[in-house]
C-alpha cells in the first residue's frame, strides 16, 4: 500500500479524534480539568498531524492533477428511491488548503484555551472540562465540513458547528449585567442560533431543490459541465430565474447567515459574549469561514451564466456582489465607533468576510479563497491577542480604559500589531496585503463601484485597526487594571507567535507573477495555480494582467488609514476619561455608528416585537381560548357523559341485574315450597317422572327414526 491509497482513509479519520475527545470528556473525564485539556489537545494534535500529512502529500501533486484526481472515497449511506445518499470524503486543492489552515488555527486555539480558561493556571473556570468538550466537538464539525464530499454531510457538520456556537457563546450563561439593555451570554447564544437558523433554512431549501433537480448532492456529480448545463437550462418556479440561479441564491442564504453578512450579521458582534478563544475560533477563523468556504465550493453553480468578457453576472453573483460590498462598507464604518476591543474585531470580521463574498460576486473566487485563508490566520491572531489583553488586564474589554500595554505585554502587543497590519493590508510584509490586493485588483477590472466601496472599506479598516492598536498598546494606562497588566502564560503567547508567523508570511505563496520585483523573484503564484485548478476548467478565463493602479490605490488607502489612525489616537494619546475624538469629528453620525445603524433596534421593532405580540395574541386567543376551550369543553362533555353513564349503569344495568336476580330468587322460593318437601318419596316420584319422561322421549325418537 502506498501513501496515496491510504490517503482517503487518513482523510476520513481526520474529524474523528476530536469527536472521541468530546465523548471521553463528557462521559468520563468531566471532573479532571487537566486530563480533559490533555485529551482535547492530544486529539486535536492527532487531527492536525493527519491533516498536515494529507496537505503535504497532495501539495506535491500539483493543482491540476489533484483537481482531476482528488482524494475521494464515498460509500452509500441512505438509500433514497433509485439513488442513495452517500457519505464520503473529498480533498481537492481548495479542501487541502482549508484543511491546512483549519488544523493549524484550531490547534493554536486549543492550546491557547488552556491559558485563557485557567487564566494562566491561576483560576480554572468551573466548567473548564466542558469547554474543551465543546470546542472538540466544534473542531469535529469544522474538519468534517472541510473534507465532506457532498452537500448533505456539509450541512450536517455545518449544523454541528451551529450547535457548538450556541453552546459556547452562552458558555457563561449565568452572567447578568446591571444594564438590562446589554445583551447577556444567554441571550447572545440564542440570538446567534436563531439568526443563523434563518440562513440555514434557506440553505436547506437550496439543498432540497438541488437534490430534486439533479438527484444527487455529491460535489463531484453536481459540479460538472453536463449537470450545470442541465440546471442552467431548467426553468425554476420563479420566472426569469434558472434552477441554477435559484439554487445558488438559496445556498447563498446559508452563507449570509453563517458568515454574518447583512442582513443576518447581527448575531456575530453579540457572539463576543462567549469566551475569547471561542470568538477567535468560531466567529473569526473557522465557522464563519465555513459560509464562504461553501460559497467557494459551490461557485461553479453560483456562477452559471457568468460571462467575464461581457461583464454579465449571474443572479447569485449579483446578490453576492451587492451584499458583500454593502456589508464590507457598513461593518467597517461601525467598527470605527466601537470601544469594546472584541466588538471592533467582530465588525472587522464581518467586513473581511464581506470582501470574500464580494470577490465571489465579481468572479474572483481564487482571491476569495486566498483571503479566506489569510484572514483566518490574522483574525485568529487578533482575537487571541485581544483575549490575552483581556485576561492580562483583569477582564477589561473597554479600549478606553486600556493603554500602555506595549510595555507590560510586549509579546501580545507585537503579535497583535502584526495581525493588525495584516488586517489593514500593510504592503508587502503582511499576508492581508496580498489577498486583499488580489480582491481589489479583480474588482478594478470588473466593477468600479465595487472597487471604490471596497477601497474605502479598506481605508476604514486600516483606520480602526490603527485606532485599536493605539488605544490599547500606546500611551499611558487609563485604568488600574491596565496598569497592572502582565503576560498570561506560555500557552497563551506561543499560539500568538505561531499565528503571527503565518499572518506575516503566508501571503508569499500568493504573490502575483507580474508583481514588480517580488513577483519574478518568487515567480510562482502557488496558491493561485493550485486552488485555481479546483474548478478552473469550469470557469471562463479572464486575462491575467497586472495593473498598478488598483495596487497603488489600495496601498495608498491602507497607509492613509493607518497614519490617520495614528494621528488621531497615537500622536497625542488619550488621557483617562477623555472622550473619543471621533465623537466630535463625526458629529450626529457617531451615535448612528455607535448603535450599529440601529439594525438591532429595527429588527426588534419590526420583527421581534410583532412576533412577541403575535405570540401573545396567539397564546391568548388560540391557545387559551380555542385550544384550551376545546379541551375544557371536551372535559366538561366527558364529565357530563360520565354522569349520564353512571346513571345508566346504576339504574338500568345494576337495576336490571338486581331485578333478574330477585325474580329468580322468588321463583326458587316458590319452587322450593312445592318441590322440596323433605320427603324421600316425593323425591323418588320426581325421579320416576323424569325417568318416564326420558323414556317417552326415547320412544318418540325411536319411532320417528323408524318412520323416517
Amino acid at each position, binding site marked *: 500500500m502506498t501513501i496515496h491509497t491510504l490517503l482517503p482513509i487518513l482523510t476520513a479519520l481526520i474529524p474523528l479524534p476530536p469527536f472521541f475527545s468530546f465523548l471521553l470528556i463528557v462521559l468520563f473525564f468531566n471532573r479532571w480539568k487537566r486530563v480533559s485539556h490533555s485529551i482535547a489537545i492530544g486529539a486535536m494534535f492527532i487531527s492536525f498531524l493527519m491533516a498536515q500529512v494529507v496537505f503535504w502529500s497532495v501539495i506535491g501533486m500539483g493543482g491540476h492533477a489533484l483537481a482531476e484526481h482528488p482524494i475521494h472515497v464515498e460509500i452509500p449511506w441512505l438509500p433514497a428511491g433509485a439513488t442513495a445518499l452517500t457519505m464520503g470524503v473529498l480533498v481537492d486543492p481548495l479542501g487541502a488548503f482549508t484543511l491546512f489552515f483549519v488544523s493549524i488555527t484550531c490547534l493554536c486555539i486549543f492550546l491557547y484555551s488552556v491559558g485563557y480558561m485557567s487564566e494562566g493556571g491561576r483560576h480554572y473556570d468551573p466548567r473548564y472540562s466542558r469547554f474543551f468538550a465543546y470546542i472538540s466537538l466544534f473542531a469535529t464539525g469544522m474538519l468534517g465540513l472541510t473534507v465532506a464530499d457532498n452537500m448533505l454531510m456539509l450541512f450536517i457538520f455545518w449544523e454541528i458547528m451551529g450547535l457548538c456556537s450556541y453552546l459556547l457563546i452562552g458558555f457563561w450563561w449565568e452572567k447578568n449585567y446591571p444594564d438590562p439593555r446589554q445583551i447577556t451570554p444567554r441571550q447572545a447564544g440564542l440570538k446567534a442560533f436563531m439568526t443563523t437558523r434563518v440562513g440555514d433554512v434557506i440553505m436547506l431549501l437550496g439543498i432540497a431543490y438541488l437534490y430534486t433537480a439533479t438527484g444527487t448532492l455529491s460535489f463531484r456529480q453536481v459540479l460538472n459541465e453536463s449537470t450545470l448545463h442541465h440546471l442552467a437550462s431548467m426553468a425554476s418556479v420563479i420566472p426569469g430565474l434558472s434552477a441554477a440561479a435559484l439554487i445558488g441564491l438559496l445556498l447563498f442564504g446559508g452563507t449570509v447567515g453563517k458568515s454574518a453578512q447583512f442582513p443576518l450579521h447581527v448575531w456575530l458582534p453579540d457572539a463576543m459574549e462567549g469566551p475569547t478563544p471561542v470568538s477567535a475560533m468560531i466567529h473569526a477563523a473557522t465557522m464563519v469561514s465555513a459560509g464562504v468556504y461553501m460559497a467557494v465550493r459551490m461557485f461553479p453553480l453560483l456562477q452559471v451564466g457568468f460571462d467575464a468578457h461581457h461583464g454579465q453576472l449571474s443572479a447569485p453573483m449579483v446578490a453576492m456582489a451587492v451584499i458583500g460590498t454593502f456589508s464590507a462598507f457598513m461593518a467597517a464604518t461601525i467598527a470605527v465607533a466601537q470601544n469594546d476591543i472584541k466588538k471592533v474585531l467582530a465588525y472587522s470580521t464581518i467586513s473581511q468576510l464581506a470582501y470574500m463574498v464580494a470577490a465571489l460576486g465579481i468572479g474572483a473566487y481564487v482571491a476569495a479563497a486566498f483571503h479566506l485563508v489569510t484572514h483566518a490566520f490574522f483574525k485568529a491572531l487578533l482575537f487571541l491577542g485581544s483575549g490575552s489583553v483581556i485576561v492580562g488586564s483583569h477582564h477589561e474589554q473597554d479600549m478606553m480604559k486600556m493603554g500602555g500595554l506595549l510595555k507590560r505585554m510586549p509579546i501580545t502587543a507585537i503579535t497583535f500589531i502584526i495581525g493588525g497590519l495584516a488586517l489593514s493590508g500593510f504592503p508587502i510584509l503582511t499576508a492581508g496585503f496580498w489577498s486583499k490586493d488580489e480582491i481589489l485588483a479583480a474588482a478594478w477590472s470588473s466593477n468600479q463601484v465595487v472597487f471604490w466601496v471596497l477601497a474605502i472599506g479598506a481605508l476604514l479598516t486600516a483606520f480602526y485597526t490603527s485606532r485599536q492598536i493605539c488605544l490599547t498598546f500606546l500611551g499611558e494606562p487609563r485604568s488600574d487594571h491596565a496598569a497592572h497588566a502582565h503576560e498570561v502564560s506560555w500557552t497563551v503567547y506561543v499560539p500568538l507567535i505561531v499565528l503571527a508567523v503565518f499572518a506575516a508570511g503566508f501571503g508569499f505563496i500568493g504573490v502575483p507573477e507580474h508583481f514588480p520585483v517580488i513577483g519574478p523573484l518568487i515567480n510562482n503564484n502557488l496558491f493561485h495555480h493550485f486552488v485555481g485548478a479546483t474548478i478552473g476548467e469550469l470557469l471562463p478565463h479572464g486575462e491575467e494582467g497586472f495593473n498598478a493602479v488598483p495596487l497603488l490605490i489600495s496601498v495608498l488607502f491602507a497607509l492613509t488609514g493607518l497614519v490617520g489612525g495614528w494621528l488621531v489616537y497615537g500622536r497625542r494619546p488619550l488621557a483617562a476619561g477623555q472622550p473619543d475624538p471621533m465623537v466630535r469629528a463625526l458629529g450626529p453620525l457617531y451615535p448612528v455608528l455607535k448603535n450599529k445603524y440601529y439594525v438591532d433596534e429595527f429588527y426588534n421593532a419590526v420583527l421581534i416585537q410583532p412576533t412577541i405580540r403575535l405570540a401573545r395574541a396567539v397564546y391568548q386567543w388560540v391557545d387559551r381560548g380555542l385550544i384550551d376551550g376545546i379541551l375544557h369543553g371536551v372535559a366538561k362533555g366527558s364529565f357530563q357523559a360520565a354522569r349520564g353513564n353512571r346513571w345508566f349503569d346504576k339504574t338500568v344495568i345494576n337495576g336490571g341485574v338486581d331485578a333478574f336476580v330477585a325474580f329468580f330468587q322468588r321463583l326458587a322460593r316458590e319452587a*322450593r315450597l312445592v318441590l322440596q*318437601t323433605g*320427603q324421600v318419596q316425593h*323425591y*323418588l316420584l320426581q325421579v320416576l317422572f323424569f325417568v318416564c319422561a326420558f323414556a317417552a322421549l326415547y320412544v318418540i325418537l325411536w319411532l320417528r327414526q323408524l318412520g323416517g
Partner: protein
Amino acid sequence: MMGVPLAWYLILAAALFCVGLYGVLSRRNAIATVMGVELMLNAVNVNLLAFWRYTEPGGMTGQAFATFVYAVAAAEVAVGLALIVAIYRNRDTVDLDQINLLKW
C-alpha cells in the same frame, strides 16, 4: 325350557319392578319401603339373568352382575335397617310422612 320366550321374563320383571316401586312410593312405613326396594332389585336380577340366558349363555356377565346385586342388596338392607332403627330411636316413629329432614 326354551319354550318360554324372553318377553315373558321381561314382563314378569317389569311387573315385579312396578310392584316394588309402588311399595316404595306408597308405604308410610319405612321398613315396607325398604322391602319395596328389595323387590325392585330382584326385578333387575330377573332381567339380568333372562338377558344372559337368552342372548349370551356362553359368558358369565349376567350371573356376575346378579351376584353383585345380591351383595349390594344385602348390604343396603343392613344399612337401611340400621338407619331406620337410628331414626326410630331419635324420633319414636318410622312413619315417612313425619320424617321430612331431607330439605334445605
